[in-house]
């Protein structure tokens, strides 16, 4: 199971926990077991707003409050719920969104907070926790497909303790996702490559070192995967905005530098091709100065790309099976500083979810009148992760073990948000 070797003690512990949780099965296990009308999400796209977006200037405006700043709040498809004026397209499809307005985290430093939002654990020098994509890759079997399970457009959290085979394939340049795949001139044809790989497999067998971080099998597997990816057309096909020029424009191809439009269109194509976890890094939200101009600009890209991605997946019948999550590492201070900026603020911030069979058209939790604290239904980062895992059909209460044998649950005691899943 999961390519793990379990000691007898661990197997015993597992089965014990299994029977215990059966005895007192919590509601979400009942839900999973019954496999109700809800269709289970198969893939996940995370849009990471790197830098920490201002919650007040996006999904949690405070019209009338001193802390609101110059943006107007506009009505959305959810009665009584307003977004910033710069997210009109998302407001228009708010019935397909679920907004969490009561996230709360203890981390106010970029690196530590980004790590928490990616792994669900506060960073520890004792253990490098795996990111969401790696944790999921380990749960999903790699069916020897041509595409990796986990693609990241821009950097992301690595596999940490799980080991490199669960790491992402990172696309550094969104304009050339196949950059690493093309054969250099004079490399030779498939016959020659097959010869090389066969000789390599044989040579690796002779190397008797069998260390956890350097199993010979892993190296052979990595080369075989590299070869499959190289031969696949997927990475060459994902970046052809010309094949859908009007759609590309709708994604926001002409807004700002078109990065996010390109990345989101690629994400949809990756999901269609069988990639199960796509992360998109979308930075620029660290607005210590000139917050409002910057957020307005960033919002234009975000609004077009996200709204079109949701509609596009919907038209292709993929929205129910594709979970979309959008968040940054924290929110920003309600207080506007002397540079017309806002500073790091983890006390309360927002996240946006869509698709994946979630119950949308609702807002979870509340911040107070100034946006400075949670007023209702505090959601911790592990709760957010537990919700994603559960929507993707995993049982977060089950004990899981890292390859080195230590207990490593999917989340740090996260509780799925019931209202979104029921």
């Amino acid at each position, binding site marked *: 199971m999961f390519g793990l070797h379990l000691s007898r003690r661990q197997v015993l512990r597992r089965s014990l926990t299994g029977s215990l949780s059966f005895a007192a099965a919590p509601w979400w296990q009942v839900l999973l077991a019954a496999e109700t009308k809800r269709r289970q999400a198969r893939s996940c796209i995370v849009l990471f707003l790197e830098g920490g977006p201002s919650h007040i200037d996006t999904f949690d405006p405070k019209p009338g409050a001193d802390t609101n700043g110059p943006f107007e709040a506009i009505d959305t498809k959810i009665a009584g719920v307003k977004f910033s004026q710069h997210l009109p397209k998302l407001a228009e499809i708010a019935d397909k969104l679920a907004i969490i307005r009561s996230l709360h985290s203890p981390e106010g430093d970029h690196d530590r907070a980004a790590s928490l939002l990616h792994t669900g654990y506060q960073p520890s020098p004792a253990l490098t926790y795996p990111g969401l994509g790696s944790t999921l890759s380990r749960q999903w079997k790699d069916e020897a497909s041509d595409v990796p399970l986990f693609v990241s457009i821009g950097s992301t959290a690595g596999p940490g303790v799980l080991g490199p085979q669960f790491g992402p394939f990172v696309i550094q340049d969104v304009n050339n996702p196949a950059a690493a795949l093309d054969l250099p001139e004079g490399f030779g044809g498939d016959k020659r490559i097959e010869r090389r790989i066969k000789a390599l497999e044989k040579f690796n067998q002779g190397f008797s*070192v069998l260390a956890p971080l*350097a199993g010979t099998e892993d190296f052979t597997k990595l080369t075989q995967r590299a070869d499959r990816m190289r031969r696949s057309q997927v990475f060459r096909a994902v970046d052809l905005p010309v094949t859908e020029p009007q759609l590309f424009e709708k994604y926001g191809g002409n807004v700002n530098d078109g990065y996010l439009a390109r990345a989101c269109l690629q994400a949809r194509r990756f999901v269609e091709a069988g990639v199960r976890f796509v992360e998109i890094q979308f930075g620029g939200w660290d607005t210590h100065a000139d917050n409002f101009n910057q957020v307005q600009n960033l919002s234009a890209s975000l609004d077009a790309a996200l709204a079109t991605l949701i509609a596009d997946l919907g038209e292709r019948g993929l929205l129910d099976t594709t979970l979309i999550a959008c968040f940054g590492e924290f929110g920003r201070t309600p207080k506007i500083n002397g540079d017309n900026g806002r500073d790091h603020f983890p006390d309360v911030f927002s996240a946006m979810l869509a698709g994946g069979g979630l119950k949308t058209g609702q807002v979870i939790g509340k911040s107070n009148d100034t946006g400075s604290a949670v007023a209702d239904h505090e959601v911790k980062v592990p709760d957010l992760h537990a919700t994603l895992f559960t929507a993707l059909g995993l049982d977060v209460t089950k004990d899981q073990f890292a390859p080195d044998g230590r207990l490593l649950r999917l989340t740090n005691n996260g509780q799925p948000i019931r209202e979104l899943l029921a």
Partner: protein
Amino acid sequence: MSTTLILVMGLLGATEPDVARQLDLRVSEGWKTENIQPTAVCDDATILRRVWLDLAGRVPPFAEANKLAKSGKPQDRAAVIEKLLDSPEFAAYWSRQWAEDLLGQRPFDQPEFSGRKLQQFLRESLKANRHYDQITADLISAEGAMDESGAVNFLLRYNADPSPLAGAVSQKFLGLTLQCAECHDHPHAAWKQSDFWGLSAFFARLRRMNPANPQPDEQFAAVLERPRGELLVIDKKGKPDEQGNFPTRTVMPQFPGAARREIAPARREALSAWLTSPDNPYFARHYVNQVWKRLIGAPLVLTFDPVPASAKSDAADNKLNAAILEHLRADFVASNFDIRRLITVIMLSDTYQRASGSSTDAASDQQPMRREQGLFSRGRARPLSADQVHLSLGQAFGFYQDDGDHRLAQLTDEEFTYDVPVNSFGSEPQSLGRSLALFNGEHVRGAVDVAAQSLLRIHGDAAGPAHIRRLFLCLLSRPPTDEELDSMLDLAGEDIPQRGLEDATWVILNSAEFQTNH
């Protein structure tokens, strides 16, 4: 001689081999209760490659591997280590890694600081075998312009700003995560906000200077220390004024975890003295732990933060590792923080030299093997970094991808402007990205081409055993077995000699054996 006798002989006047033997004895204590059989110390060729990769960041040159293969005499391992520690390659490679650690990023030049100048300072310090306490004191007390003082670039990297510097100093020199206490008392360690701000205050009088009218493309910054001025922090416990602004409060320097006391006017000298004192509970231990991790592949202690007793696990292992750490710390302090001696002691030990293969028929069951590795009864194969792959290709074939990069590859000069190793091979070893780069990257394509050409030039234009033998010695530091020779000749014979040897080179470069320091 009995174990106890050797252990009580103490460290006074002990030679490096003595201390290494004592280290081995301590390590073997851990195996008794579990009846663990260690692997044998590995053969000369493996040690030669291991020591070169660890100290010089590259495989040994063909000439040395060839001499060893031909000699039939046991190699003087101590002499190999000593010679390498004295080489410019060691100073260059270790300074590169050290600069990267201190900066938290690759040591390139940025507008705010010069990574190259910092590396140059570290390189010259290592070359002169300056001791760890002296180098640290220079970094902490540096002053001046970024292009004159190499050391000042450490301060500039953290903006010469008290709180980032407190975080960096606690992390880099003490192995502590004090920076978590910047905003609140540490969530899972005993640190208080006052510890963090007390450490910050040592840097309160630093000022970062920038030119008033910078020339286009001019990079310039400097650090000065003013004779007065105190650190002011916002006091959230105070009473806010009418606009809701909290009052500020003055913070005086204070050593973390220590009682408040008067600090000498030369604050940074006082901080250096406290850091590098033999009594500092973290300074020497942290460095020993780092070097151990670099050479053995896993740290002895995961964190030096005082954690609640309830969070500790695996008490027996912790005790064993703590004893190993203490043994090395005591010798390191007794030698006045001699970096080369610490490295020599570890490398001379059987613990460092153990084979990484399996000792018993444990190949089918990795769980016990991990346990044995935790107890240091066998070596740990470590995947090569991008720098190691890059330098090894240069060593083996004289191929560095970029002509202008020869000097970088020598690592005796830092006149490089972009990151060829990471651009060519990706930062993550043993990943899909690395495998793709080795599969079809331009860099590997070029290296394979050059390798085949030079093999044909040296050994004649029909691919034969001599070609394959040299290829093995260049990349793996050992001659091929008969079986390997046969299958490589078969592979190379499938095509014209140039292309056939390209194929053979490609296979070795993509192999697990080449990609690990085993």
